[in-house]
């Protein structure tokens, strides 16, 4: 269903995307499509060991190969590039090319620039390396032992961060609880795996000292200055060009490694250099692996099913480095108690380093895990207390009159109507029918299961979770702003400039719709482009489901600036008080009259005819606006209250219905209903697409996806033949319904929805499979639920019963 209920003209309209023609006709320029005169191609030699010291490297034969321009070891590269940017307080240093030792299989050791990628890869085969292998630390529990080999010798142990955060009277709530529901839960290491790997083309000009960078990095106007530091260049001498990006799902926030490798080789050779990860580079070494956690989880519940307190203690395998610190764990503190009136929360975090590729960000950023853990506890409570899961949730949902709602960690939920979302989902799911079907099927030896999850989907981060939950003294807070520029030309055409790139989301469509709304024009008439950092305004780009909210705010602000000037000019020309003017259908009207001017009339005057303008008005008609996060409050010194840091709170209910084949372990979807409330919907079609795609990824982590390492630390899933992504036959048709509860804090009431599908599907799908297997008494405490596991669990259950 794609209708919306809001009262706007263009916001909420189900229009085709602005972005698509270039993508469909093959003319959009992705990073790998950039080609420059004299451009060289880079390839990377990667470590075969998970943990080893580099004794010596002989690159002489590689350097002699015809067509090779440069061969760089990590140590040689330190002359032209510094360590990679890291957002952790702990001294965990990472280089784009390993220096002294490698900490995971796949870490870069030597890079080559040559006239073709073929020759560059030939050269890698001529490099001789003497290794001293070290014992690898792969199992996270082994890594925590005091005598475990250390991934980083400069740290006291592999437990890089350990802290227990307590919010509210947890001990009291657990003492008052009649039941303590306990589960040990295992969430698997997944990875973002966008179809386009990360990459960069860097062109260093030693005569000017400037570097041009074409890369699919997202945060070019936000952390570009940090990447410049890695390149050992002043930030104002590095120009990042925004690129069309073939998907990210969090994995391309920074892309610092690819930029550093291409940048180092460009500095050394004086040529532009392209480095594109191939798929194995991406799966083995992109730093986009996701939370890999063991939870001891407890929910304190009363006899009548009231949730009192929540305790979650986690061990999280962060891999070899710590680029985003504990963001994967702190992100979920924004919604850790879910949509429920849970009064207190304690969460202990042990972040552990191992010899694996490190965690980065993947859609959900840890809040996906939090939803799964919480909903597992709710389903467990339902089973143990014998209270129906829907009824149990109803008794605990925050009610519509409780907003804005301050949850235990201090974050604020802006608005919502969770019972209504649940009702809407139930209305479309027809569970009476499916329960009868389930019963009928069981009599035939077939196993149908019904799942349901009611979850939060936080959106629009502010004072980023990267560091400020850290118990160490805080740095300052950022509002993570986003900017836009609107210009109206002499012929009345509207141009919009964005300062964050296209990521696979729909920023051009959003911009066109918001500007159409503001100026009363057709969105197809709005031209949307992107600008490089030389002309850049602050912008953090997509991530944390923020882009639609932040862009709407930035465009609303920029439009207000232009309108004010337009009204002054129009009032002067129409001899009317600007307060009596209205903007409608692309014209400025004197209210209640037939007198009006078009945008072209006003644009032409503004550009060309200074002396027709009112006194004191300068020529030109453009407005730039940087929109700061609409609602941020600082954390308390003692971190007992984290403040509002992710307050634009979306919500969803998912109801999947599956059939499990107990002989093959196949899970087939019979129906999937998803109701999402992301505030005011801007484009129902693109939102629906985001939800579909997110659910497909949620099905992926539920049933198929897991990054696996051998005991020696070899990545066993470094190809798409081994890391299994859902394909067309595995993903069902999904019925998506939009429920709209506007945010009181954002422009037009928009909330973020980019991650919701992936954040909600796993607990719902898990419950559906568990429900199907209920006759066998199977309880699911781990993902992915692969066919092998299902067959094994059923066999074990049958053995036990016989």
């Amino acid at each position, binding site marked *: 269903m794609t209708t919306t209920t809001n009262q706007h003209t263009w916001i909420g309209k189900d229009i085709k995307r602005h972005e698509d023609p270039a993508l469909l006709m093959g003319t959009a320029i992705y990073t790998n499509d950039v080609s420059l005169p004299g451009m060289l191609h880079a390839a990377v030699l990667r470590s075969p060991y998970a943990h080893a010291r580099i004794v010596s490297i002989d690159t002489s034969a590689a350097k002699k190969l015809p067509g090779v321009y440069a061969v760089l070891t990590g140590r040689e590269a330190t002359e032209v590039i510094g360590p990679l940017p890291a957002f952790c307080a702990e001294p965990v240093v990472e280089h784009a090319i390993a220096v002294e030792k490698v900490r995971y299989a796949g870490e870069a050791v030597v890079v080559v620039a040559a006239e073709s990628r073929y020759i560059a890869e030939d050269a890698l085969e001529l490099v001789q390396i003497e290794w001293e292998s070290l014992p690898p630390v792969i199992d996270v529990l082994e890594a925590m032992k005091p005598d475990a080999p250390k991934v980083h010798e400069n740290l006291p142990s592999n437990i890089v961060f350990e802290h227990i955060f307590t919010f509210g009277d947890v001990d009291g709530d657990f003492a008052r609880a009649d039941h303590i529901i306990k589960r040990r839960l295992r969430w698997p290491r997944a990875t973002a795996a966008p179809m386009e790997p990360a990459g960069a083309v860097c062109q260093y000009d030693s005569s000017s000292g400037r570097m041009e960078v074409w890369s699919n990095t997202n945060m070019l106007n936000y952390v570009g200055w940090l990447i410049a530091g890695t390149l050992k260049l002043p930030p104002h001498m590095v120009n990042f060009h925004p690129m069309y990006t073939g998907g990210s799902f969090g994995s391309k926030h920074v892309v610092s490694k690819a930029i550093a490798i291409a940048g180092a080789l460009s500095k050394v050779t004086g040529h532009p250099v392209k480095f594109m990860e191939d798929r194995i580079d991406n799966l083995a070494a992109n730093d986009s692996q996701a939370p890999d956690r063991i939870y001891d989880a407890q929910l304190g519940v009363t006899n009548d099913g009231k949730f009192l307190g929540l305790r979650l203690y986690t061990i999280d395998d962060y891999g070899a480095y710590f680029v985003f610190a504990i963001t994967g764990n702190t992100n979920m503190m924004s919604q850790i108690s879910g949509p429920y009136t849970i009064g207190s929360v304690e969460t202990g975090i042990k972040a552990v380093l191992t010899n694996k590729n490190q965690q980065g960000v993947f859609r959900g950023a840890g809040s996906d895990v939090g939803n799964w853990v919480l909903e597992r506890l709710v389903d467990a409570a339902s089973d143990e207390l014998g209270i129906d899961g829907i009824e149990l949730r109803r008794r605990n949902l925050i009610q519509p009159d409780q907003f804005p709602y301050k949850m235990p960690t201090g974050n604020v939920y802006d608005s919502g109507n969770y019972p209504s979302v649940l009702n809407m989902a139930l209305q479309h799911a027809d569970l009476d029918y499916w329960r009868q079907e389930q019963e009928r099927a069981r009599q035939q030896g077939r196993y149908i299961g019904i799942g349901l999850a009611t979850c939060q989907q936080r959106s629009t981060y502010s004072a980023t979770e990267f560091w400020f939950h850290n118990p160490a003294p805080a740095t300052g807070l950022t509002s993570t702003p986003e900017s836009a520029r609107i210009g109206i030309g002499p012929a009345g055409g509207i141009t919009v400039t964005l300062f964050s790139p296209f990521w696979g989301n729909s920023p051009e469509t959003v911009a066109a719709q918001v500007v159409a709304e503001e100026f009363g024009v057709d969105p197809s008439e709005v031209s949307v482009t992107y600008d490089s950092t030389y002309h850049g305004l602050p912008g953090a780009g997509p991530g944390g489901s923020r882009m639609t909210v932040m862009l709407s705010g930035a465009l609303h602000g920029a439009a207000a600036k232009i309108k004010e000037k337009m009204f002054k000019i129009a009032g002067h020309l129409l001899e009317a008080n600007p307060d009596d003017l209205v903007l409608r259908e692309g014209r400025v009207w004197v209210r209640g009259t037939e007198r009006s001017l078009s945008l072209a009339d006003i644009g032409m005057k503004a550009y060309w005819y200074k002396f027709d303008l009112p006194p004191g008005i300068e020529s030109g008609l453009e407005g730039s606006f940087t929109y700061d996060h609409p609602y941020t409050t600082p954390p308390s010194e003692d971190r007992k209250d984290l403040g509002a840091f992710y307050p634009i709170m979306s919500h969803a209910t998912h109801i999947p219905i599956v059939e499990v084949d107990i002989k093959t372990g196949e899970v087939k979807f019979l129906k999937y209903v998803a109701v999402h409330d992301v505030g005011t919907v801007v484009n129902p*079609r693109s939102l629906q697409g985001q939800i579909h795609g997110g659910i497909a990824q949620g099905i992926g982590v539920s049933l198929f996806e897991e990054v696996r390492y051998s005991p020696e630390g070899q990545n066993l899933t470094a190809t798409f033949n081994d890391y299994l992504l859902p394909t067309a036959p595995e993903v069902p048709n999904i019925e998506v319904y939009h429920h709209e509860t506007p945010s009181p804090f954002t422009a037009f009431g928009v909330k973020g929805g980019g991650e919701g599908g992936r954040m909600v599907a796993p607990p719902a799908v898990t419950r559906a499979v568990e429900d199907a297997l209920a006759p066998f008494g199977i309880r699911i405490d781990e993902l992915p639920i692969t066919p092998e596991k299902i067959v094994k669990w059923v066999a074990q259950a049958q053995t036990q019963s016989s």
Partner: protein
Amino acid sequence: MQDEDFVTIRLTVNDVTHRLVVEPRRLLADVLREDLGLTGTNLGCEHGACGSCTVLVDGQSVSCLMFAVQANGHEVMTVEGLARNGQMHPLQKAFWEQHGLQCGFCTPGFLMTAYELLQHNPDPGEEEIRSALSGNICRCTGYQHIVNAVRAAAQALAQTTAEPSGTAV
């Protein structure tokens, strides 16, 4: 690499014939993208698993694993060959209408696979479409809108012509 290691080939790509001198190991996809500048074909995995790089050789879908020399003397069609006179092919229009793409990176591969499907089966059912597309991975869309787009394209083509050909626009 000695000069005699290079091979001269003729490739007809989107109705234009090219004479090229290539190493035997050079992949067709690299020739298309780097030598001919047809960057609409994208490389997603380079090990034959994702289908992003799908192009048609004599009407049959092939991946980037094919060497250029294997296509010597054959007709290649890429995503750039779908539109005619700047007008989108009905498949492209249907993907736009049905929101069958998000980041667009896998899209050329899906378009070419779907084009091949509709050549052989002008009226495919949903399961046939899903099966035909099962060698193409999309990480963005969840496939539903892609499947809808292929069905919509089939219907549009049936209304205009029996031939799902780019010239039929």
